[in-house]
């Protein structure tokens, strides 16, 4: 198969192939709203729109799909559609659980390496949502290896909460584990450029 064949095949499966363009008034509206927004924190969508009825919009899309209505224009409300098979994604979160050994693993540490990282079965980037007792709950932003989890829960094994001190709520970390045990010798840590490039290189 040539690269061109591959690209043609991928294009044949483009989910946005049948996406109808927005009408110009809707487009202008989007542009105007971007300029009108009062400065709020970037990265907190929804913070300025309390009660945004996205669930209603998604439900409406489902109803339209169920009725077999070919979604077209014009229509009130959100205009982004993908076709009759659009359905909202609302499902239970996927949680991965690992433990932090904390019992002297540090004394056997070697320099973090790509090979060591590749031997892990879980490698993710995430932000610590909460720390409660011996459990740190991490919202997953990115997965390099392992299941597409939403959340990773890290439990300190030795029973003291001192073993999860390195995790701070709100901070972002790269976390690696194998067989459910978190790697603590330099492969797990704050998401800085060096560690990030190690993960990128490994996977």
């Amino acid at each position, binding site marked *: 198969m040539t690269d061109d064949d591959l690209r043609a095949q991928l294009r044949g499966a*483009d989910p*946005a*192939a049948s996406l109808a363009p927005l009408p110009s008034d809707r487009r202008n509206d*989007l*542009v105007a709203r971007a300029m009108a927004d009062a400065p709020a924190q970037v990265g907190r969508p929804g913070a300025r729109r309390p009660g945004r009825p996205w669930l209603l*919009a*998604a439900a409406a899309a489902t109803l339209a799909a169920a009725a077999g209505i070919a979604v077209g224009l014009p229509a009130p409300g959100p205009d982004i559609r*993908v076709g009759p098979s659009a359905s909202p994604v609302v499902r239970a979160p996927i949680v991965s659980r690992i433990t932090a050994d904390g019992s002297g693993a540090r004394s056997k540490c070697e320099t973090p390496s790509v090979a060591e990282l590749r031997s892990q079965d879980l490698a993710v980037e995430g932000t610590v949502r909460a720390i409660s007792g011996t459990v740190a709950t991490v919202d997953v932003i990115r*997965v390099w290896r392992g299941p597409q989890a939403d959340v990773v829960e890290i439990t300190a094994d030795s029973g003291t909460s001192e073993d999860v001190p390195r995790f701070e709520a709100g901070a972002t970390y790269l976390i690696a584990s194998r067989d459910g045990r978190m790697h603590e010798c330099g492969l797990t840590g704050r998401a800085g450029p060096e560690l990030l490039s190690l993960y990128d290189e490994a*996977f």
Partner: protein
Amino acid sequence: MSRDLRLHGDARRARFEALAPSLIEPLRRFLMRRTDPATAEDALSETLLVCWRRLEDAPAEPLPWAYGVARFCLANAERARRRQDRLVARITAVDPPRDHVPHHAAPDLSAALARLNPQDAELLRLWAWEDLGPADIAQVLGTTANAVSIRLHRARKKLKELLSSPASTGHEPTEGRKR
């Protein structure tokens, strides 16, 4: 002798009004390829907002830069959505892997993409769907054209291998690079 090259007030608005409309459809398609319609809509608004705020960063050819902004906003929007969706019940991570894409005409291709490492899948999407060359992809991802060329070549090879052995499709956790 220095000049303040930043635009202010009406001139800035005029620049955004000239630039933004032609970004909207490509950004919509980019987002709709990667997530559900509701999240895509949120992310689109956020993307335009960030483009407005960081207008001074926009290059003369702004689309790859705007895709980069969209990636960032998409990650945020997905995080927010997951927080809203989250139930208290604890469920162990099991298959199937999450498929962001609402509809695929070719399920084998969809399955093969899902089996690739997420970075490789994203490279292939940017190459095939956004139709970007390595230099532009590098701009979107914040890396070098050289790194992109190498990874893209490997990713294409992997996808071809997966597509030519359909018996291997099935539910498995996404794997990293195999030797």
